[in-house]
């Protein structure tokens, strides 16, 4: 017997997918098409005239060492944000799953940071770490560490990673907690009776059963790190110092909307489009195979 649901006519299915197709066309295909078209021109900022340059914009960005460096920056940044935010969230979820007293309070408090917009999160962290007036940098100074993310690239990177990861922990926590709670207690208890310790149970039962959640979060977090962290970068470092925190999406913005170089900006967004597409394909082809549904 055929297991798939099939439709008799074609009108109803067409009608059902139309909204999705329209939304995708208006918000994805149209702008993406525009970006590809514009990447072949160098327009003046006001849109009064533009010069056709073919591959010129791509040639320009790929000979720019700072653009090439932004690939590495993006990779380091996205990986760090994903690992930190997922790792901390998983740990918190494991702990929250085990407590009995006041569990609801803990959970509510842990979810709160999700309500903070990335730009606000950026400003909060900036205040704490401001080299001259920040609370944290003041204490660091007390113990003899001279914090200055305005000049020090590594410190700047650390700060934007922390701020971005922090505002993502709640979201990940929610999903991990839900995932943990859907794991049958009987399985875990049976293992415990067989003498398996906490970490052994985690490694062999909990983590594998959690893998669909983990995979979903991995994809979503990488996309988050690529795009939504814009607000954090914008408020904390604006891509500096020396472009050490200039991730690809921020460079698209700063070259296009601050520098008024719309041709280069369009070319960069086309490249970004391909990078993200490639990443998603890779994730679904290779990592998803290891996921147990």
């Amino acid at each position, binding site marked *: 017997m055929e297991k798939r649901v099939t439709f008799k006519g074609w009108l109803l299915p067409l009608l059902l997918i139309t909204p999705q197709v329209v939304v995708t066309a208006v918000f994805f295909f149209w702008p993406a098409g525009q970006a590809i078209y514009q990447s072949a021109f160098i327009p*003046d900022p006001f849109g009064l005239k533009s*010069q056709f340059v073919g591959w010129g914009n791509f040639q320009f960005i790929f000979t*720019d060492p700072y653009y090439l460096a932004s690939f590495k920056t993006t990779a380091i940044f996205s990986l760090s944000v994903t690992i930190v935010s997922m790792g901390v969230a998983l740990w918190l979820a494991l702990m929250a799953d085990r407590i009995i007293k006041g569990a609801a309070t803990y959970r509510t408090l842990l979810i709160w940071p999700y309500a903070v917009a990335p730009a606000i999160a950026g400003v909060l962290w900036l205040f704490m770490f401001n080299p*001259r007036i920040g609370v944290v940098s003041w204490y660091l100074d007390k113990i003899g560490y001279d914090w200055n993310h305005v000049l020090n690239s590594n410190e700047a990177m650390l700060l934007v990673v922390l701020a971005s990861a922090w505002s993502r922990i709640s979201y990940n926590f929610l999903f991990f907690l839900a995932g943990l709670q859907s794991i049958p207690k009987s399985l875990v208890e049976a293992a415990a009776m067989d003498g398996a310790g906490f970490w052994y149970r985690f490694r062999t039962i909990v983590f594998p059963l959690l893998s669909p959640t983990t995979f979903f979060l991995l994809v979503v977090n990488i996309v988050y790190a690529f795009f939504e962290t814009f607000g954090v970068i914008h408020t904390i470092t604006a891509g500096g110092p*020396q472009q050490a925190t200039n991730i690809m999406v921020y460079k698209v913005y700063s070259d296009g909307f*601050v520098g*008024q170089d719309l041709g280069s900006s369009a070319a960069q967004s086309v490249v970004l489009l391909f990078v993200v597409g490639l990443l998603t394909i890779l994730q679904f082809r290779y990592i998803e195979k290891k996921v147990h549904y």
Partner: protein
Amino acid sequence: MKIKSVLTALILSLGLTGNSYAATEIQWWHAFTGRLGELLDEQVEKFNSSQSDYKVVATHKGNYSETLNSGIAAFRAEEQPHLLMVFEVGTATMMAAKGAIKPVYEVMAEGDAAFDSDAYLGAVKGYYTTPEGQMLSLPYNSSTPVIYVNRDAFTAAGVDPDTDISTWENLDGVLGKLKEGGSECPLVTAWQSWVHLENLSAYHNVAFATKDNGFAALDTELAFNSELQVKHLDAMSQWAKDGKFIYTGRRNEGGANFRAGECALMTESSAGYAGVKKEAQFEFDIRPLPYWKSAEGAPQNTIIGGSSLWVMSGHESEEYKGVAELLSFLSTSDIQAKWHQDTGYLPITMAAYEQTKAEGFYEKNPGTDIAIIQMTGKAPTGNSKGLRLGSFDQIRGLIDEELEGIWSGDKTAQEAMDSAVERGNKLLRRFEQANR
């Protein structure tokens, strides 16, 4: 009861909008907040109450870059304001956008407004006029860098506050003494590229870029990696290493440290005066920007920073008449003299300068005329007229990056400037291509 009050409100609001439609509205987008924003609103208020044909609506659109970008985006969406405030860095971009702007000299001629472009200070006007002497945008706020001295900090460090710091050679020794005397922050700066590269070059009559810093042609190339600039940055990098120069950020972040009394010296725009005067709990004075004694012909003159008002194209001629009236109102010496005295920006007309002098303002506020003397002391040369470079906002950004490389010790001054010149030239070529 409820319906009645809603109806009353409706009728009232109809009446109100009816009134405002009687006057032609003029949109003015600007980048000022805080005290400057208040003073600008005051000017608008004065203009609106001085006549009934036009109503100027001033809107704050973010910082300088954001204001320019909103203007550009609005033009693309055909919703541009009548007047757009553009900082000096965006001048070349606006000049190249011939179809998007309506030159001020044209607006003034068509509007029959009293307008004499010779009334403006040459050093200010030169920045915004064509080689033929036609004024394209109206200078609004212009300043030039000077050095602020915290006299109390000097005394605390055991240094005579009246020590001669007119040259960088002298200042070098003074910074050493301040440091030895226990100062945690001998020197701080705002707008590093503007003060320590752009103005440094003009002040020593050295090219920042070829072709008269871009005034003569679009195919200009950057030239600020020459001996003088590298020597200056080498000295500064040594000061940074020794803790004599403290780097605080790309914009005017350092102003907060100076006003709080932490720093002994600050190089900053003359327009920083209003803030320092208001907040400083210490004795301070203003001195001319130091120069290198060893450089021949120094000091030349410094150049301006600030903004001008551009008239955007695509509006009704009736509205342009109002714009012309507003612009002549803004140039009257009463308005200009008050602006100059309140803010520390330069008086942009000779009349406003004379008026301020006659009122005895400079005697009561020593140091406030230093900026104007420093700018107009010598007739400007091709290297000191100003800068007219495309994509300059971006070029400044990459200069900032390279300078940060020097302060952190990653690069030598020569390496950093060579790299800045090379990267900047690429942007200039793209700008040239876009505006061919």
